[in-house]
């Protein structure tokens, strides 16, 4: 009887050791929690959260080093979804952070000198152009991060709010008078 117990305990120990070693040896590079958080972040890559992009912010949240209400493009809705994922209470956006309407950058083609500085700043390579050639922003790919504005030496980039069109229009939340039940 005793030997049986010892054998079982021995097997348990060995297997446990193997598992422990395997978990170190074959550690998955990407933390699944970071991936999940990153999937909620809007990928504007604007750095307003204080981190150089969405992924670093996601990593900081996962490590417990950053609060969940630091991303203005994600808005209240984004905070709510992060709170749901992490099982914490939602809260309003951080002090001084406010979501802006979705905009895209536009280059004034009369003024652009083709210096390529904005291309280097754009986190998603949404600007096409070569040295000394007029640069153009691909509106579909622009996230509206505004990072290309400060580097431009001739201030020829401005943001334009994306207008609602027939294709992107949404039905409004129905507002109807509700009769008070006396």
């Amino acid at each position, binding site marked *: 009887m005793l030997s049986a117990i010892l054998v079982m305990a021995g097997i348990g120990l060995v297997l446990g050791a193997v598992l422990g070693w395997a978990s170190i040896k074959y550690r998955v590079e990407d933390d699944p929690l970071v991936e999940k958080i990153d999937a909620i972040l*809007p990928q504007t890559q604007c750095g307003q959260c204080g981190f150089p992009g969405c992924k670093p912010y996601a990593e900081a949240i996962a490590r417990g080093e950053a609060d969940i209400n630091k991303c203005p493009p994600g808005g209240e809705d984004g905070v709510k979804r992060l709170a749901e994922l992490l099982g914490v209470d939602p809260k309003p956006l951080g002090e001084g952070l406010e979501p802006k309407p979705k905009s895209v950058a536009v280059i004034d083609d009369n003024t652009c000198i083709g210096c390529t500085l904005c291309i280097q700043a754009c986190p998603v390579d949404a600007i096409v152009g070569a040295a000394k050639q007029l640069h153009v922003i691909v509106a579909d790919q622009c996230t509206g991060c505004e990072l290309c504005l400060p580097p431009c030496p001739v201030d020829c980039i401005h943001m334009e709010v994306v207008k609602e069109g027939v294709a992107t229009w949404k039905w409004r939340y129905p507002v109807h008078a*509700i009769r008070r039940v006396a």
Partner: protein
Amino acid sequence: MSRKLLTFNGGVHPEGHKDVSNATPIRLMPLLPRYLVALRQHIGGPARALVQAGDTVLRGQMIGAAEGYVSTAVHAPTSGRVLAVAPHEVPHPSGLADLCVVIESDGLDQAIEFQPLDWQALNPSALRNRIRDLGLAGLGGAVFPSFIKLNPEGAGIDTLILNGAECEPWITCDDRLMRERAAEILQGVAVMRHMLGAREVLIGIEDNKPEAIAALRAAVANEAEVVAVPTLYPTGGGKQLTYILTGRETPTGGRSTDVGVQVFNVGTAYALYRAVVLGEPMLSRVVTVTGHVATPGNYEVRLGTPVTDLLAAAGGALPGATGELVGGPMMGFDLEDRASPITKAVNCLIVKDRAHFPASPLILPCIRCGACARACPADLQPFEMYWFARAKDFGKSQSYDLFDCIECGCCTYVCPSHIPLVDFFRFAKSEIWERERHKQDADQARARHEFKAFRLEREKREKAGKLAAKVAENKARDAAAALGGAETASDPEAEHKKAILQAALERAKKAKESVTPQNTENLPPAVEKQIAEIEARRAGAEITQPETGNSPS
């Protein structure tokens, strides 16, 4: 030989009001001085404009080409001159403007040469492309491009159903079309059948249209069966009609093609006849004008006709009218602007009055009576979906098969608490679509950001490699030159770059100066004189400024 018909669950019996508009033959609208052709006539991609302001066009000339897969062409409704290609009000629940081609008629109504297609000889793929370029889209309300639905590949369609149910109250355009143009409709059906390879053709018509049933039965030989189906809203729903006629149930989230059935509206069959047999692009459609107007009836209207003109042709709205409804009372929406043109999607225009369309009553809380669920033809639980849509918990409402809702309005119709359930479902659906769009945008941005990081990393490595090579080279040279010439302190390359940037800055500054006042070119002499005077005054003011001062002390 009577077919065994099934009945779907639910459905309602709203008052028909069909007799208001179905007594008179279809009337032709006179030629108008101006048309506004919307480039977006249906879901999917809008057409790409092929004309610009100043161009002259002929009737039937393609003015917008199909762009992307779910798209069809649009054509000039008459001959004349293009005044503009610009945003204009369109009949859409949003009331937003969309791109339209504005055409001023020359009064001649000259047409391009229409070329009938030898459809029996053409191969199906070529025929489909022609049908797309002729602008064919479903006229039943959903306005899906027809050429896509006429693709039989892999679908295994054995039954073609022609939808003549016209179950929405007030609307009678299909009724009149079937009564008056049955033979032409059947010619269109023959083309459809040829393209789909369907064995059986069923024409379903609600039994409140005996004249239409008689007309089609008289015209049909044995190529199709005309079936009278009991009047019950929404019999005209594709899935519902399929079930009634064939007993086949369309799976959740699927289409009728999944069960071997393709459904077309009778109006589409007629348009297909005109397109293929006569070679004429889709230029007009039959529109019911009914309700509180002087002469309600059906009108053959060129696409692009402003609503104002159509109402005028119908004798104008009677006193006491309270607005217009596009489509029927169950699924239609309020027209925001009467300047909007008729599009392929507009089958009916109802002028409302207080007696038939009273102000919506105040809504009460849901009492969970289940009436909406019993009325739902899609076997959904509207009160559950409503509960979550109202709380903006879209995931939950989706889990109740929100996307199987056909927005028929039966639930709203029966709700004793007058809750506008469909409005909530439309709201929830469009929110979910937007999230889907945002997610796609975010995925694209993430991928592009990651690629940029990868690219920078690669470039850095390459640069480091080059630098190492250069350093080694320099060292070798230095060693060879030993105590040779004097070293320049600054890097000549950097100097050169700086100079280029400086020059470019200067150029840009000049360009900005010369370009900014764009509205001062090509001015009439009078205005130029005025400007010169103002400039002179300004110059004077500048000189005197320091003297007059502007400090209040």
